[in-house]
């Protein structure tokens, strides 16, 4: 089995080996440390100065990444914790995203900003957030999230191919779980990738009672809720896991939906799910029995103490309740 973080590390190795123009920078990314979550391990030893540990300067290092990209060097910037992407908001929104269009002609900025995100690790309010929603709806800025289904190498290649700045969120708990391969999730579920979206369905592919749209970091909690709902209530759930969160991609399997829930780790209010619902409502209006259900973390800071953190973040128990209420 390959852990998600090792899989991503392998993808970065392959990418840097295949394309000598690619540069990577971030705080403490150099060997032997290899980044706070070890995703950049071995890159410095192999690629030398194309891999740089930087000062603690999030806004400036994203700007440096944009400058490299502007000059034809695809760049990957690691932000140690996604929370600190807030410090780089200006470079992302006012420079990188805008410069692709504001000079009256397309300007390629192949820049990927990687952001380890999410909680359930007891890191406290400034090291646990899932700030994807703050970057949704910025013209020129694409938002992605790592999943246990999507090949990271293909994902990165796809992001660079847009020639636009892309954020890649990487759930910190997901890092430690295994990549799925060969279309099999477990005894109950299989998956396929359709148009860049993983569709996770029961073995015999019945029409689902509820379709769950979830980013990569939510997959395991959503699956655990789906299992329990099957065993306890015979409720059938299907998951749609897009790697690209914004712009919301075409989602497969919508022709047979009965009800849709969007689950996410961002706090409630102005959330990613609202954007998904905005895109889906016109398309599904005549088939849905009720509005799309949105569920996320409570509108709250994320406490450090595990017993408090658990209550704030979306857990399988609450997901089950949300689904049962939605299909009742």
């Amino acid at each position: 089995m390959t852990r998600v973080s090792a899989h991503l590390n392998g993808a970065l190795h392959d990418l840097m080996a295949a394309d000598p123009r690619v540069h990577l920078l971030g705080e403490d990314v150099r060997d032997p440390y290899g980044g706070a979550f070890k995703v950049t391990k071995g890159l410095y030893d192999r690629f030398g100065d194309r891999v740089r540990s930087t000062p603690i300067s999030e806004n400036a290092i994203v700007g440096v990444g944009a400058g490299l990209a502007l000059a034809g060097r695809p760049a990957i910037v690691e932000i140690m914790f996604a929370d600190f992407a807030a410090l780089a908001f200006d470079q992302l929104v006012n420079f990188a995203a805008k410069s692709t269009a504001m000079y009256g002609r397309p300007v390629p900025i192949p820049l990927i900003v990687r952001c380890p995100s999410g909680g359930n690790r007891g890191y406290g309010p400034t090291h646990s957030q899932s700030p994807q929603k703050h970057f949704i709806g910025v013209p020129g800025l694409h938002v992605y999230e790592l999943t246990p289904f999507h090949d990271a190498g293909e994902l990165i290649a796809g992001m660079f191919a847009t020639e636009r700045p892309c954020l890649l969120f990487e759930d910190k708990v997901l890092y430690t779980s295994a990549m799925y391969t060969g279309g099999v999730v477990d005894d109950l579920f299989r998956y396929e990738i359709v148009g860049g979206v993983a569709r996770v369905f029961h073995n015999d592919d019945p029409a689902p009672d509820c379709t769950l749209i979830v980013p990569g970091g939510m997959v395991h909690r959503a699956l655990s809720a789906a299992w329990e709902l099957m065993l306890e209530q015979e409720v059938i759930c299907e998951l749609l896991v897009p790697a690209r969160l914004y712009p919301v991609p075409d989602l497969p399997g919508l022709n047979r939906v009965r009800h849709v829930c969007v689950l996410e780790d961002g706090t409630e209010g102005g959330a990613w799910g609202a954007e998904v619902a905005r895109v889906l409502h016109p398309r599904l209006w005549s088939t849905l029995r009720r509005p799309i259900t949105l569920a996320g973390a409570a509108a709250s800071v994320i406490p450090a103490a595990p017993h408090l953190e658990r209550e704030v973040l979306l857990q399988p128990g609450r997901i089950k309740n949300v689904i049962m209420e939605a299909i009742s």
Partner: protein
Amino acid sequence: MTAQPALSPPERETLSPPAEADLDLLLLIRHFELTLLRLFDKGRLSGTTHTCLGQEYVPVALKPLLDEADFVFSNHRGHGHFLARHAEPYGLLAEIMGRQGALCAGVGGSQHIYHHRFLSTGVQGESLPVAVGTALTLKGTGALACVYIGDGTWGEGAVYEALNMARLWRVPLLVVVEHNGIAQSTPAAAHMAGTVAGRAAAFDIPHHRTTSTDIGHIRAELAPLVAAVRRDSLPLVAEFATHRIGPHSKGDDTRTPEEIARVARHDWYTRYARLYPEIFEPCDLRARELVERVAAEVSARPLSVWEGP
């Protein structure tokens, strides 16, 4: 050119005999931090923590130079800063363990504490502008805002924007720089061009650097400078060449064994133990026992209760 703090061989610095109260506090902080690492190893603590092993003497030396009315801003490595400001190890451990009696209901944890004019946050560089704002309100009162930052935090632009305003507006701001020569895994030579002194000079802010670990000596050097911050309402950058003898957080020290041994030679703990065993040993035992009691008592408490957001 980059400049590293010159490391005076610690053997050459004779430590004067410590006052018992100072030694008690130093050892309380030391055993508190060691206990945290032990609790982590046993799986009794979650999340993360940054211990100040080796740097305890900085807040202890500053303690009598700070007044009740001063505001202290701390960072991710703040347990020592806190304990030197407030003798509340039970409350601090309860905060870190999410138990009843926690300073901030267990919401903030190790890095986010707000308690009686002591505030810490885990985002580097964020507190300096906030300290300038608070210091503005203290101007003319004789009180000051003290803010602790590490060498690595000088990478953040907010530090410079804040220093500029602090000097322009003449605010009573004491910036304590714990220059331990490393930021997480990155040595200062790889993250800082020039020097802290040069940067302070660029803003016309007085700067003082000490390599001493002698508490009495540090106080004598800094007392008139801190008094001037209050009297003249002007910022001061007080830089300590210090040494982080433990990991950045837990088990993530990628320095070579030689390098770790080199910094450990600066440890006040072994030096006091060697120089003044008759004062040191009873204090050490006392602190050990106190922290053991704190850990046992707090671990047995029920989980903290939070009213909610």
